[in-house]
C-alpha cells in the first residue's frame, strides 16, 4: 500500500530524516515509535505532502507520489490526523466533519458517513452544534479522527493520538483504532506511547534521531530487551 524508499528530509540546513525506508501493507497497523524529536512527525508530514523529501521516493498504491499535493493525496485515499488534532476550533463539530468530506460529492453518502462517525463517537453527536475549540482534548482527538474518516481513507496516518490524554481515554482511542483497522483501513501510527502502540500494531519500526534502528513484528519488539529499556520503561 505504501512504500518509502530512502527518503532524506531537511529542516533548513539540518537533516532530520536520514535514508529512511519502510513499507506498510494493505490491512496492517504499522507503528513508528521513537523518542521526542526522532523525526516521526516529519516522516508523516513528508508522506502526506506537507513537507518535501530532498531525495528518495514515496510510493502509494503503486504510484510515485513524492511531489503530489496533499489535497490530491487525500483524493487518492490517504488521510492524515495531525499531531495536536488541529481541529478547526472556530467551527462546529458538524462543520469539521463536513470539511472532512470536502472532496466527496454524494450528499446522501456523506450524511450516512456522518451518522457512522456519530455511532463510533457518540460524544461527538451530543456536541455536534458546539464549536470544536470548546471540546476536551479527548473529544478533539475523536473529532480529528472522525473528520479523517469522512474521506473514506484506504490509508490512515495517525500522529500521536494519545498525546495529552488520560490513560482511560488512551485505551478507548486505541480500541477505536483497532476497530477502524478491522473495517478495512490500513493504519500507520506514530506514537511516543510505545507500549500502547506495540500492543495493537502488527509491525513496528523504531526511529532514533532520523534513522530506523530496528524493525520487526510488534510482539517481538514488545519483548525485546533494548526496546524495553529505551521506550517501555
Amino acid at each position: 500500500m505504501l512504500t518509502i524508499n530512502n527518503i532524506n528530509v531537511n529542516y533548513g540546513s539540518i537533516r532530520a530524516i536520514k535514508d529512511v525506508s519502510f513499507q506498510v501493507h494493505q490491512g496492517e497497523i504499522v507503528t513508528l515509535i521513537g523518542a521526542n524529536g526522532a523525526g516521526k512527525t516529519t516522516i508523516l508530514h513528508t508522506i502526506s505532502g506537507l513537507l518535501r523529501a530532498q531525495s528518495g521516493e514515496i510510493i502509494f498504491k503503486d504510484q510515485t507520489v513524492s511531489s503530489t499535493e496533499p489535497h490530491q493525496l487525500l483524493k487518492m485515499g490517504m488521510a492524515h490526523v495531525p499531531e495536536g488534532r488541529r481541529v478547526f476550533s472556530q467551527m462546529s463539530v458538524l462543520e469539521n466533519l463536513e470539511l472532512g468530506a470536502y472532496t466527496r460529492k454524494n450528499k446522501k453518502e456523506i450524511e450516512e458517513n456522518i451518522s457512522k462517525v456519530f455511532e463510533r463517537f457518540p460524544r461527538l453527536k451530543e456536541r455536534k452544534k458546539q464549536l470544536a475549540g470548546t471540546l476536551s482534548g479527548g473529544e478533539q482527538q475523536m473529532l480529528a479522527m472522525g473528520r479523517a474518516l469522512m474521506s473514506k481513507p484506504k490509508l490512515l496516518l495517525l500522529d500521536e493520538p494519545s498525546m495529552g490524554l488520560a490513560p482511560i481515554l488512551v485505551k478507548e482511542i486505541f480500541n477505536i483504532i483497532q476497530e477502524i483497522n478491522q473495517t478495512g483501513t490500513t493504519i500507520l501510527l506514530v506514537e511516543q506511547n510505545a507500549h500502547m502502540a506495540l500492543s495493537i500494531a502488527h509491525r513496528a519500526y523504531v526511529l532514533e534521531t532520523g534513522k530506523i534502528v530496528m524493525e520487526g513484528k510488534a510482539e517481538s519488539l514488545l519483548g525485546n530487551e533494548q526496546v524495553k529499556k529505551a521506550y517501555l520503561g
Partner: protein
Amino acid sequence: MTFLQQLINGLHVGSIYALIALGYTMVYGIIKLINFAHGDIMMLGAFTAFMTLTTFQLPIGVVLLITIIFCAIAGMLIERIAYKPLRNAPRISALITAIGVSFALENLFLILFGASSKPFPYHINLPPLSIGPLQITWITIITLLLSVGIMLMLDFFIKKTKIGKAMRAVSEDEDAAQLMGINTSTTISITFAIGSALGGVGGVLYSIAYPQIQPYMGVMPGLKAFIAAVLGGIGIMPGAMLGGFLMGIIESLTKGYISTLWSDAIVFGILILVLLIKPTGILGKNIREKV
C-alpha cells in the same frame, strides 16, 4: 444640520468603507497579508465604471457587473503574479510587494488617464426623500441597500457554502485544510477575487458619492478602510463591517460638529486609542490553543 442627518451621511460613507474593509480583512484572514494595493483596486473599479459609462453608455447595473468581474480578475492576477511566489517568504517581503503593486497601479493609471480629476458621469436626478426635516438622497439609499445586501450575501456565502467553509478552514489552519483535500491555492485566489470585487463596488459607490476620479483616489479611502478593518479586529468579517460603519459615522459627526479639517486626525486618533485599550480590535479575541 441635525444629528440624525449626520448619522445618515455617516452610514452612507461608512457602508462604502465597510465594503472596502471586508477586502482587507478577508485577505488578511487567509494569508496574513495587509494588501496595500486594495485601495487601488477601488480606484481600478472606479475607472472601469467610468470607461464603460462614457464609451459604451451602458446602464448602471451592467456597469456594476462588469466592474465586479474586472476587479475580481485583476485581484486574482495580482495575487498570482505578485504574492503567490512569496507564499513562504518572510511576511515583510509580501508587505513591501503590496506597496509596490499599489505604486505600480497608481502609475499605470497616471500614464493611461493623466493626473487631472475627471467628473464621474453618473447622477441620480431624483429629488431627495424628505422625512420631516431629514433629507435622504437616493444615492444614500441605494448605497446602503446595495452594500448591506452584498454583506448579507457574503455572510451567507462564508457560513453556508462549501467554498466559504473552505475559506474559513484555510484561514484558521492552512496545513489542516490541505489535509481535508482543500486546494489552498484555489481558495486563496477566490478570496482575492471576492475581496477585489467588493473593493470595485466600493469604488463605484464612492465615485457616485464624490464624483471626481483620479489615479490616487484610492489612497485615502483605502487607508481609512484599512483602519476600519483594524478597528473592528483584522481578519474578522463582522469586525470589518462594524469598523467601516463606525469610521463613517465618527468622520461625519466630527465634520458636522467639530471641524472638517480635523476629521481625519480625530479618526486616526480614535484608532490609536482603541488599539491602546484593545490591541486586537473591537471584535478581536485572543484565541488560546487547547493542548
